[in-house]
């Protein structure tokens, strides 16, 4: 008879750290962590030594000093006596302006082009293919400087609008002027204004919000909410009785009437640009740098969005369209109720990354002199103060925050439209 004994109790040996799968992952992680910390310590040590040798230890005090340069395209008050921090904030707002404008136009353009690429019309589909390939295969920086050159070279100077035999005229019943110094558009004005709301006192990130605009927006949003309630009520009645009450005049009235009343009460009117002296006065002046950047980013990103839209629509199987047709839906409703909601799930994730790309590409503003955050904080401020490390760190942080915010918001939206699988 054999006796079974317990295997001899294994004592821990050093080699088990490598050969025993129970410990190996821990070993690898510790080694990786040590390596990373050594590398980080080495880099920080080098940086500290170098900065000491250069005599400029890390110090963010320069942000409070007077910037001393001008920013011609800005949303908020700023002068060359303002601080570097203020200049960076102006730049940040400019980045956001061009990113938001660009995302909007790129989405609209991209959807139109993507749908047209699938058109049954051979010629239209080919033209859109040429557009997409043309923009996707040429660097965006080239498009930006190219459009800037087009605007400067082909548009008339302001003095061409002057005199009896002016060679250039304003468009849209004398309200918009395209000149080689930029585009002048009418600005909204309120004659019985409520004044501005001053936020953040006297700090560098202070800004004003027009109360008129807030009130108008509140009226508009209230109208939209009311219109949705009307629609919901119509849905309930339709479910209960089968008849849908006519609602379009109620919806239109709820959205338009309060807004129009509020705008009339505040004395809304447009301030038109007019030629005075050497240049246009009044209205809103959008400089060529902004227009070129906005156009180039929109056209370039639209080509990518068009491809995503096309892929999304193609991903919906033909059976869906046919089944919807068999239910008796009209083509427009098939698109709106069946194809698009499903295609959106495919389109949205790549769309998010296109928005991110557009926002990051807006940093190329520096090539045409549009003062975004790269142009102010990473451009003139960095060169004037010589604080490369601080400026670039702040710049990267700003872009990281913007990117992470966009992807967070869009991921949340993506989650809410995701297919609920069981």
């Amino acid at each position, binding site marked *: 008879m054999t006796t079974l004994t317990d295997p001899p109790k294994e004592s821990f040996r050093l080699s088990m750290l490598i050969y025993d799968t129970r410990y190996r992952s821990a070993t690898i992680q510790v080694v*990786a962590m040590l390596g990373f910390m050594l590398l980080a310590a080495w880099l920080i040590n*080098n*940086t500290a030594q170098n900065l000491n040798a250069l005599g400029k230890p890390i110090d963010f005090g320069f942000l409070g000093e007077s910037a001393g340069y001008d920013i011609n395209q800005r949303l908020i008050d700023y002068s060359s006596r303002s601080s570097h921090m203020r200049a960076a904030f102006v730049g940040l707002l400019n980045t956001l302006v061009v990113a938001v404008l660009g995302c909007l136009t790129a989405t609209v353009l991209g959807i139109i082009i993507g749908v047209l690429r699938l058109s049954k019309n051979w010629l239209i589909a080919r033209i859109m293919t040429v557009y997409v390939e043309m923009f996707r295969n*040429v660097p965006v920086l080239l498009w930006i400087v190219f459009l800037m050159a087009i605007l400067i070279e082909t548009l008339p100077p302001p003095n061409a609008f002057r005199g009896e035999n002016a060679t250039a005229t304003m468009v849209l019943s004398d309200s918009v002027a395209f000149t080689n110094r930029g585009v002048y558009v009418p600005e909204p004005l309120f004659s019985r204004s409520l004044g501005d709301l001053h936020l953040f006192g006297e700090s560098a990130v202070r800004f004003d919000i027009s109360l008129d605009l807030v009130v108008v927006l509140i009226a508009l949003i209230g109208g939209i909410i009311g219109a949705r309630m009307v629609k919901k009520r119509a849905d309930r009645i339709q479910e209960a009785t089968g008849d849908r009450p006519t609602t379009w005049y109620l919806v239109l009235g709820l959205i338009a009437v309060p807004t129009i009343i509020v705008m009339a009460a505040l004395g809304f009117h447009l301030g038109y640009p007019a030629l005075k002296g050497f240049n246009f006065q009044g209205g809103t002046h959008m400089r060529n740098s902004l227009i070129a950047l906005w156009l180039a980013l929109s056209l370039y990103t639209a080509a990518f969005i068009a491809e995503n839209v096309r892929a999304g629509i193609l991903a919906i199987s033909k059976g869906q369209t046919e089944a919807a047709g068999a239910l008796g839906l009209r083509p427009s409703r098939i698109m709106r109720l069946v194809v698009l909601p499903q295609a959106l799930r495919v389109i949205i994730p790549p769309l998010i990354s296109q928005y991110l790309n557009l926002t990051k590409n807006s940093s190329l503003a520096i090539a045409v002199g549009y003062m975004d955050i790269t142009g102010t904080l990473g451009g003139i401020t960095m060169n004037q103060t010589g604080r490369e490390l601080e400026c670039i760190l702040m710049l990267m942080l700003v872009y990281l925050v913007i990117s992470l915010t966009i992807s967070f918001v869009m991921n949340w939206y993506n989650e809410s439209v995701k297919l609920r699988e069981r």
Partner: protein
Amino acid sequence: MSDIAFVRTEILPQKAPPVAATGFIGWARENLFSGWFNSILTVLSLAVIFSVLSSILPWVFSPTWNGTSLANCREILTAAGSVGEHGTTGACWGVIRERWLQLMFGFYPSELYWRPILTFVMLFVALGPILFTDFVPSKLIWFSGLFPFIAAWLLWGGSIWNPLVALAGFAIGFGVFRYASTALGALAAIILAALVPILWWVFLAGPVASGLSSVIPLELETVQSRNFGGFMLSITIGVTAIICSLPLGIILALGRQSDLLIVKSLCVGFIEFIRGVPLITLLFVASTLLNIFMPPGTNFDIILRVLIMVTLFAAAYMAEVIRGGLAALPKGQYEGADSLGLDYWQAQRLVIMPQALKISIPGIVSTFIGVFKDTTLVSIIALLDPLGLSNAIRADANWNGIVWELYGFIALLFFVFCFSMSRYSMYLERKLTTDHH
């Protein structure tokens, strides 16, 4: 009895389809004029095409190839009679004829142009066994492995021992790996194979190279980095970043997919950081900060610094593309590899990676295209890529006022490169398809 008078016994020959349904007319009715809306669209787009072509074509075909300055071009155009209401209408191609070598090579010494040209030709020979496995003998892959060292030597010049000693580092690493994996085991072998070459490059390579070159001086004339420019610079940066970012991206993607928490979070942090900031800020780091991060007194080449940052940038994007490929593989592939008894690296090398990389080819190529396009950004940190050179050329008194010709030429070259890359990826996708239809 029926009173049928006539029964046909044979089938009638088929009639030809109506003219309006076949040939060009039928095709046009089907595809261009299939309704009033489509007809309007077709007519409108024909009008747009006509107006665009009628303004661009005369401009392109202008007889100014031999113009010596913008004023001279205008004289030629006036003599040829192409004068519009805003002065002459026509391109001034003289600028391209005079400056195209500069747009290609920057300020590279003209008597040494054979070196970049030879490198460019060799690039295609080296790419052959990788890109066209059907037509090129696979033995040439050895040349592909050696190519980076030959290319660096040819482009920058200097002693031949520098690239050879650098290459020796890889040979040493491989030798250590072979020896250690039998003596010490796989993990230790990998760590050693990474450490020993680094020690070799940092401490021994320099003295050995200088010693060897003093014994056997064999060198090409050195070309400074600041003389690099034009498309040569774009291609150098683009190709290097592409080649180096692929292995780095694979490692990062594997790290991000791994179960090891610390490794994973390091990889995620790196990838998300790089993807969250624009390339231009990384180029600012290359131009101003990278020297501060190095030990005091280090001052290394601006192109090398740009190469490092562009490679890191591309690697982060590559990692995400490959991660997509890894995630798309069915779980059964991982389990199948495990059940065959393959260890982690064998499974990755033999089962997972070949499939994951195949799935991610479109993404990989579009990352390549993106990186190549992004090389134009180096003009912002004052390197003379084609875009940077175009500004320099426009500042020349002879060519002051030239816009379209230069940008058009540069755009055309970029288009040719990027478009052929995307066509190649389509070819590769078709070739590698193993689906059954």
